[in-house]
């Protein structure tokens, strides 16, 4: 068995670590690229959301490199993601590929099924042993997410452009090399010291922006045009609403991002009174929270025809108005271009900057316009 999985942000580091630990043979699919997208588009249903098309591309690339077993997460709806595995299986089989597929259904679909799948993944190991393995990998993933969170927040203060990104990669490598729980604890401080060692100008005037939306688009830099690094370089301090660990964690506390699902639902309540699958409710809830906390703006990213975030997009203008916080939504599909996206985002940043200036000088927008 040579197992493979779709790419999404740092998920490959987390899973590689887990497979190394449990002694499973695996292939990491090549970094998602234009070629991945092309391969995925060839077989995917036209109106499906972009993540499905990309992950099909990931699978094809891995199958062509010799993988024979596909690992995919399942789900119980109502977002389409829960049915991805079935569609992937259907289109890849129709395309003539031979493979096995392991679908890791969430415990919500039944504990027995969940445990059976785990045992399939780690033959000969008890549930307790698997849990120990997962715990260590999870701990590592959390450290990595903390590093990312720090980088997103402080990149805009760096004195020399590119320092933060380099330091972040170095810090990731330090954590990645650690194997046992004790080792991870030991290198943690070292990794953070690398990030903190980046020369910064904390007096710098920066914008504070929240990023919300569908998790795959947010977590996979190839699809979001690495917008976070770009924004950091443009002098924007970022706060993202979801991290890999928050997404794979069964807990609803969201340890990295720091706000529990319950608080998010509470914040969203006046605008959206029920979860609608995917990140629909969190997107609304987070924008309310960003509004309350006085952020300068909100960036909303999601794939074209994404059901939950389309609902969020409909509601966002109300939140924007009530909290006086500008927001911009980008609907991303295979036709979306980097230049067009960044140009629009640049214009949005101009707007945020002028709004901030006027707030400080006390001049109203009308006054500014009449000049």
């Amino acid at each position: 068995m040579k197992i493979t999985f779709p790419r999404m942000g740092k998920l490959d580091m987390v899973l590689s670590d887990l497979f190394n630990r449990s002694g499973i043979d695996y292939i990491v699919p090549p970094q998602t690229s234009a070629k991945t997208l092309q391969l995925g588009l060839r077989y995917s249903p036209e109106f499906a959301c972009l993540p499905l098309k990309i992950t099909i591309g990931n699978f094809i690339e891995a199958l062509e490199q010799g993988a024979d077993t596909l690992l995919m997460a399942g789900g119980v709806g109502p977002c389409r993601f829960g049915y991805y595995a079935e569609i992937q299986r259907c289109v890849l089989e129709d395309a003539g590929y031979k493979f096995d597929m392991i679908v890791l259904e969430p415990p919500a679909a039944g504990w027995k099924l969940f445990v059976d799948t785990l045992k399939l993944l780690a033959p000969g190991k008890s549930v307790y042993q698997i849990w120990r393995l997962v715990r260590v990998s999870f701990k590592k993933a959390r450290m990595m997410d903390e590093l990312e969170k720090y980088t997103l927040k402080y990149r805009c203060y760096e004195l020399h452009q590119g320092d933060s990104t380099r330091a972040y990669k170095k810090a990731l490598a330090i954590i990645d090399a650690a194997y046992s729980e004790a080792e991870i604890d030991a290198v943690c401080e070292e990794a953070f010291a690398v990030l903190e060692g980046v020369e910064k100008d904390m007096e710098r005037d920066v914008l504070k922006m929240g990023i919300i939306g569908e998790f795959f688009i947010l977590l996979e830099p190839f699809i979001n045009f690495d917008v976070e690094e770009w924004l950091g370089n443009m002098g924007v301090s970022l706060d993202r609403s979801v991290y890999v660990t928050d997404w794979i964690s069964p807990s609803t506390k969201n340890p990295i991002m720091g706000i529990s699902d319950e608080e998010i639902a509470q914040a969203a309540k006046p605008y959206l009174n029920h979860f609608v699958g995917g990140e629909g409710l969190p997107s609304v809830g987070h924008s309310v929270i960003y509004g309350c906390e006085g952020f300068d703006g909100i960036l909303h990213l999601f794939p074209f025809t994404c059901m939950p975030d389309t609902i969020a997009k409909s509601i966002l203008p109300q939140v924007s108005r009530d909290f006086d916080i500008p927001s911009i939504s980008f609907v991303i599909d295979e036709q979306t271009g980097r230049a067009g996206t960044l140009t629009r985002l640049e214009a949005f940043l101009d707007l945020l900057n002028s709004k901030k200036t006027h707030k400080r000088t006390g001049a109203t927008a009308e006054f500014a316009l009449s000049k």
Partner: protein
Amino acid sequence: MTVGVPQALLYYKYYPLWESFLHGLGAEIAVSNPTTKKTINLGTAAAENELCLPVKVFFGHVLDVKDCVDALFIPRVISVESGAYTCPKFLGLPDLAKTADTALPLILEPEFNARLGTRKFYQAILDFGKFFTNKKSQTIRAWMDGVTAQKAFQKKLEAGLTPVEAIAGVEPQPARGGLKIGVVGHPYNVYDSYTSLNLIKKLRGWGADVTTTEMILPKTLEHEADRLPKRLFWSYEKEVVGGALHWIHKKNVDGIIYVLSFACGPDSLIQVLLESEAKKHGGTPLMSLVVDEHSGEAGLITRVEAFIDMLKWRSM
């Protein structure tokens, strides 16, 4: 009190239930006018661009009826059976309605969630009834009347009437023995005569016998949908799949027309499964007809005519 019911989305599934229920609670009912060009224009202007056609049509109907009623009836239908949901858009429908850029009357948004079990389901109905009456018995009676009306409606569908005909009280037409076409898709796409560009009427006009998912027993639909390796967690898609698979496996129609709207989330995935299944098993011809607010009648007629011609050649 006059309650407005938009003639869109789940109207085509549950109107008889809602009508008896609301009447039993003492409300007058005003249903919005059938979809026209104007409805679609109103809806498209008021709704978020990325929303699917049926939701845009729904917005149009809300705007059409809002001025002549005291309240709008927009239930939040979360789940109609245990372990499944409806489409996410239904889960957020009352909230979506409030994003229309205009003042709306009071929105009555009862929550129907079968996932929580029978007791909570009935509790939600009683809570909703409090808005009209303090008598629990009246609410329960009104609901039971609704359930009876819905059952009678279901019988009429199984006898071969479309929901629109059943609501209007039309007599069933005898089969003519021509081509038999199965039309599958969401009721709000298939039976909205404007959205579907009058597909059913046109097919009948060409001498075809039309049968739809609604005319198949729910039990059969459920059973057929179980052929999929993983149970679908969307109830209404399960009906679509069940209907199509029933015809594909029984081979009792000459061809299937699958009506789906552009940007429909669940249908975008289901389409793959149905087309693959139709190819695998005996090859009942299946045509996917994607509709959106720009659909033109001429284009639709040409395509359907070509499909019918192909079916005629096959049967020769």
